[in-house]
């Protein structure tokens, strides 16, 4: 008996041999990628490889870890001194880093810039979103001093716009006139969208007939990551897509029948392994020029603050329903994407959006270039940071909180008369957050993450 007990204890001795921070990162990655790894281990492996490319990619792939750090006991990130229960129920973008903004063409043809990724939305503390934006700006700048100044500009603009909204002022969308860099982006998006750039890329026409261009639209990267690969879908997946389109078309009765379907791999970092399909639909006429191209994308849970008393279920029917509803609430124009919709196929929650080139994401390489450019270019970047901050203030301030009041009403009292302290707090926290991201990336960039995170399905 004693021998058996000794054997039992020897068997159980699993003394942790990883450092605390390493454990935390691996646990978070394992939880985030569990379902994807079980379904598609190779794509999950590529996602982790993509995350290891650099601190910015690491930031993009670890939103969940970021929020865990802000919320859980023993947090590796300091708490903000600007918060209370009311301002902890603000509707958040969830992952407002600089590349998660882009151009849109609203229903009336207005071109604008707004947040474009709502996968992680949910109710939470407004400072969390600001810190995420700030960390993104610091990492994109690749210079701590410039980064800190960008955070200062963003936080200052945020505080100003919150005060304006709380005073009753309505903040409109960011238009081309706001900034020369954004004007260029809008011009490119508008021009490309008008000539069906995305549609022709996905399904080029030959002799008046469209067909999907399967294969790699961009070369596979040296690290093996697919940058933009288009593959056929199985009959089962085609059926999912058709059912999703059927649900979506209930709110878009003018849309035609499904013509073509394909799976697309390569976009995003956090959602790299998610299902992402391109679907070509017949337009109003039989001509191929008015065909539509949609993206149908799998959506998962967003930010959930644990430990707060709440109903056991969310207020939305599915993650995609949440993403769509919150996009409309957080954007300056609820019709910024007239084709926006959602569907539920079995347990697969799908978000549908216009895939045409009117929607064009901002690229952080451009921000990095401005940061390393001339004094004038750095000043431009500062103005851009202020626009980011204002855009976040507008999103938070003009959407209703979980308690049903305007976000600005919940946030403004905390900032009133303390603007300078608030900006200092944000600069301090966001630069520390960025340092943590950079340190995490340095800790993990050489490891075989897939083998560590998903050992039972490792190839």
């Amino acid at each position, binding site marked *: 008996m004693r021998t058996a007990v000794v*054997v039992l204890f020897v*068997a159980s001795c699993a003394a942790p041999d990883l450092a605390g921070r390493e454990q935390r990162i691996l646990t978070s990655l394992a939880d985030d990628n569990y379902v994807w790894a079980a379904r598609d281990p190779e794509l999950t492996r590529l996602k982790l490889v993509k995350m290891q490319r650099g601190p910015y990619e690491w930031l993009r792939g670890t939103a969940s870890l970021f929020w865990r750090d802000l919320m859980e006991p*023993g947090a590796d990130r300091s708490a903000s001194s600007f918060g209370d229960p009311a301002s902890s129920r603000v509707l958040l973008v969830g992952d407002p880093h600089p590349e998660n903004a882009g151009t849109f063409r609203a229903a009336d043809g207005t071109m604008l810039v707004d947040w474009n990724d709502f996968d992680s939305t949910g109710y939470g503390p407004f400072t969390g979103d600001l810190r995420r934006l700030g960390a993104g700006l610091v990492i994109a700048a690749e210079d701590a001093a410039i980064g800190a100044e960008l955070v200062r500009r963003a936080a200052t603009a945020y505080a100003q716009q919150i005060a304006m909204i709380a005073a009753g002022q309505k903040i409109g969308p960011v238009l081309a006139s706001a900034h020369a860099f954004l004007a260029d982006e809008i011009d490119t998006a508008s021009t490309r969208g008008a000539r069906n750039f995305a549609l022709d890329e996905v399904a080029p026409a030959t002799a008046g007939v469209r067909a999907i261009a399967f294969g790699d639209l961009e070369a596979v990267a040296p690290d093996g990551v697919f940058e933009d690969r288009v593959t056929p879908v199985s009959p089962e997946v085609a059926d999912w897509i058709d059912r999703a389109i059927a649900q979506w078309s209930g709110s878009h009765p003018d849309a035609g029948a499904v013509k073509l379907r394909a799976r697309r791999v390569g976009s995003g970092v956090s959602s790299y392994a998610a299902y992402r399909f391109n679907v070509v639909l017949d337009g109003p006429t039989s001509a191929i020029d008015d065909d539509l191209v949609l993206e149908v994308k799998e959506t998962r849970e967003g930010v959930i603050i644990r430990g707060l*008393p709440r109903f056991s279920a969310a207020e939305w029917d599915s993650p995609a329903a949440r993403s769509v509803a919150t996009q409309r609430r957080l954007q300056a124009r609820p019709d910024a994407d007239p084709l926006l919709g959602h569907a539920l196929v079995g347990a697969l929650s799908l978000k549908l959006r216009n895939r045409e080139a009117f929607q064009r994401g901002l690229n952080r390489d451009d921000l990095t270039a401005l940061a390393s450019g001339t004094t004038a270019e750095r000043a431009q970047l500062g103005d851009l940071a202020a626009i980011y901050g204002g855009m976040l203030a507008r999103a938070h301030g003009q959407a209703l909180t979980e308690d049903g009041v305007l976000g600005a009403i919940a946030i403004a009292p905390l900032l009133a008369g303390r603007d300078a302290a608030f900006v200092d707090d944000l600069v301090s926290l966001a630069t520390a957050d960025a340092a943590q991201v950079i340190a995490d990336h340095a800790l993990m960039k050489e490891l075989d993450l897939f083998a560590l995170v998903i050992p039972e399905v490792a190839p």
Partner: protein
Amino acid sequence: MIRPIAWLATLVASTSIAFAQPAPDSEPRSAAEATDVVEPPVEPATSEPAAPAASSLAPAPEVIVTPPAPLPLFAPWSTARLALELELVSHARYASMAGSNLSEIRLDRGELGAQIALGPHAAAELRLEAIRSALEGGALGIDGDSMVVRVRFANVAGAVVMGPVTLDGALGFVPDPWLRTLDDGYTLRPLSRSGTERLLGWLPSDLAAVVRASVGPARLSISVGNGEGQRYPERNTGKTTTAVAEVVAVNQRTLRLSFAAVGRDGSIGVARVRDRRAGGGATLATPWVQAGVEVIKAWGIGDRGDAEGVELGGWADGRIVDHLHVAARGASLGFTAGGRVSTFGGALAVEPWRDSARGRYRIWLAVDRITSSGAAMPLPGADSGDATVAMLIVSAVAPFVLD
């Protein structure tokens, strides 16, 4: 390679003792319950023969006094061919908190257990529980966020008696031995899970082998399992070992007092986050009052291997008059690095009907208060998540035994 081999050796070694298991839930959860110690003591005068009248000329009849059967120290092994148990707890809640208050009706717990005897020394047990399919606060559930049924316990169990030693155990999804010990006689589960389970996230069952040996008033339980509970299959090569030692210090019809100590060493998840615990507790049962205390030191909490803390908990359930109970409970977890989460509550309960063989139900009017501070706040520096929840609770336990 040492650990897998050692684990394999453990499994092989344990096959001879694997068919052992705590008495199923359909059986009394404790010796106290087995002897109906919660019932008021019967007045001795009514059970004794009347003394012969002094003036009687007839010889007094001989009085034969049969000594009462000794009270079992631990719940006995069930030999029933089939034992079923249905346990339900429904809440109507009103939460008062910062921001919008909440009101909702929820099925807090729904469990159905079955045990079928496989001869006199073995049995198969399956216990199912109803849970919400989506993550708490999430939207990704099954057919919306439907109630779904999952396995809570599923094991083959057995027991053998070798002189003064009783060995029992099980292999499969088995109840955690420490929570089982705490819940033995814990009558306030409809109000709240024990502090260990609620604040430390101690998992109620695991894929494991458990062995128990009892001698006289002492019992030792050892469980070796994955450590991942119901949510995941094994995710690392280490195993989690839990040892519980119990001693019944007093075992009378009017007083039962037991003490227990627990130690655990193991790891959770791919990162092998440590899951190390040490602590103890005591349980008291009298016809009118039942109570318990627990204290646990934790190294590694949740997914944080570096977090440490001490959890303290206590509860009392008293019958003030027939069918009317008053209860109080509390638990608090303090983190070594700062911060504390606490829950306190109480209730008045009516127990309109109770039959030790056929079940019982209670209607509770209860209140539960949760507070937190420092780094233990859900949103440190911003929101402590403090709330007071008033609840109307209906709980029922309905066993069915076929011998």
